[in-house]
């Protein structure tokens, strides 16, 4: 091999290393979340009525989505590494999620509502998982997976507040929910709706008048998680 070809091989190799990230085929999947209370768009601060006729004002609605897995037409699955998102009604930017994938025709999106036990158990995390986001129980290690809170005249709790903080990853109190949404078309962005009415009336009827507060893992958190696991659906275009 002459000198020139040695240089060109080394050069190509170095450039490949430097630019490999850009060369591999990548597609962006965009999900846009829309929050509803029944048929009406959810507006923080507005008085609404839940399925039991209880009046309420939602002040905070946020939840973690993680561990995304995409499936293409041929059935091939791709796990999206480090896919952790905190969707917050108060932060419109957080309601759009982008995923990088090498798959072409996506027919299903799977994800967790909540945070896997590994991230719950390995010290302090950064980014959206930073405990600074106030989605973490400091006294009983673990993430709050989802929060719905506000005021309701039906609540007998202090200041007529209702506060649903749902979490729990240990055996017997595991509130992690796996969701699968099937896609029928390939339009982007994919519009996903989340209906807070599911929190109250889905698998379990949960009335603010009876259970206004959930601040720990346990039976009520499990019931709320069962309920909100039905809150997502794909919006027709």
């Amino acid at each position: 091999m002459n000198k020139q070809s040695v240089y060109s091989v080394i050069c190509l190799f170095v450039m490949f290393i430097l630019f490999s990230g850009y060369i591999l085929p990548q597609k962006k999947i965009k999900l846009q979340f829309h929050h509803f209370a029944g048929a009406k768009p959810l507006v923080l601060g507005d008085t609404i009525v839940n399925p039991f006729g209880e009046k309420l004002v939602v002040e905070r609605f946020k939840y973690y989505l993680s561990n995304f897995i995409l499936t293409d037409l041929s059935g091939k699955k791709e796990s999206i590494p480090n896919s952790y998102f905190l969707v917050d009604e108060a932060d419109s930017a957080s309601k759009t999620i982008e995923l990088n994938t090498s798959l072409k025709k996506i027919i299903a999106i799977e994800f967790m509502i909540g945070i896997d036990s590994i991230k719950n158990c390995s010290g302090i995390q950064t980014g959206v998982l930073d405990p600074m986001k106030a989605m973490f129980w400091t006294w009983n290690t673990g993430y709050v997976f989802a929060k719905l809170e506000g005021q309701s005249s039906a609540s007998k709790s202090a200041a007529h507040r209702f506060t649903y903080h749902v979490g729990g990853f240990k055996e017997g109190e595991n509130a992690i929910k796996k969701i699968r949404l099937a896609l029928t078309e390939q339009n982007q962005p994919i519009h996903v709706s989340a209906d807070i009415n599911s929190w109250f009336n889905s698998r379990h009827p949960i009335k603010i008048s009876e259970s206004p507060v959930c601040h720990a893992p346990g039976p009520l958190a499990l019931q709320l998680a069962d309920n909100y696991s039905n809150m997502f659906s794909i919006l027709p275009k």
Partner: protein
Amino acid sequence: MKQLKIIFFFCLLVMIVSGWINDGFKPHPLKLIVPKGWPAPIYDFKTNPLTQEGFDLGKKLFYDGRLSRDGKFSCGSCHQQFAAFTTMDHSLSHGFNNALTTRNAPALQNLAWQKTFMADGGITHLDLQPLAPITAENEMAETIENVINKLKSDKDYRKLFKAAFGNDTINTQRMGKALSQFMVLLVSSNSKYDRVMRGEDQFILPERLGYEIFNKKCINCHPAPFFTDFNFRNVGLAVDDVLNDLGRMRVTRQSKDSLLFKVPSLRNVAVTAPYGHDGRFFSLINVFEHYRKNMVLGPTTDSLLKNRMPLTNYEIGQLRAFLNTLTDSAFLRDSRFSESGGNNKPPTNHVH
């Protein structure tokens, strides 16, 4: 040919320069020396390698009142070195706005060997532990966000974070890691008991007799080298009707865990009064009286204590003599850990 050569040398230059930039970060590594005969630590040093710079930052954070809402409460205000990092002479500690804590401040020692933290074991990682007192309304009463913002706006902290972690990013994770670096080096392993076990000293008669009684009556729950088995047990303290503290059950929600609390270490026990999870016992004599007479027996009382613990006055006297040998005065006075002891020498463990 010439162009290729130029591109090649350019690539080489980029690689060398990027390597040189990274090389600017050279913290001084520290090592936790495991005392002879002790098990390997549980704390994961791979994800948080100990360095002098990390330790120094952790110590500054530990003694910084700005971690609390009104600036008055540092970690060190309730964890005083001379009391083995408990609150001297306080059943419960004072927090923000004249509030009291609901439990007795635990000693901070040998934390690298602990799997869970708090009397109920609710916290499962040392890095996460400081977030509980920082955010508790009756302790430091601050939000993590405010703490991080205060640190970010301080030039000294930006320098210290850079020295410890390579750049001046300040976040919760780095704060927790730095505090852990300080806390894991709080190793107490040089009491008279340790010297005797190493053959460097001898028990006097009451200490030796106390040690024998200890090995018969106490060792099941308080085994060496930590003088705790780190388990949760109900030792018959009646529920306080104000605190209504159910202990381990708060975390597990299982009735079998009602009134179970973590067995405390007896290292430095002579300086960590008051005793009990809510500090209800003001002296060791109260504790012995509790075990032999006052224990409340219930469905979750520890099986080893179903008949309480018969102790004679003689035994109590000898046990006290032995327990005093667990005081590690070198640890209590070690200037590396004190607020003012600002020598810049790298800490070295006193391991013989």
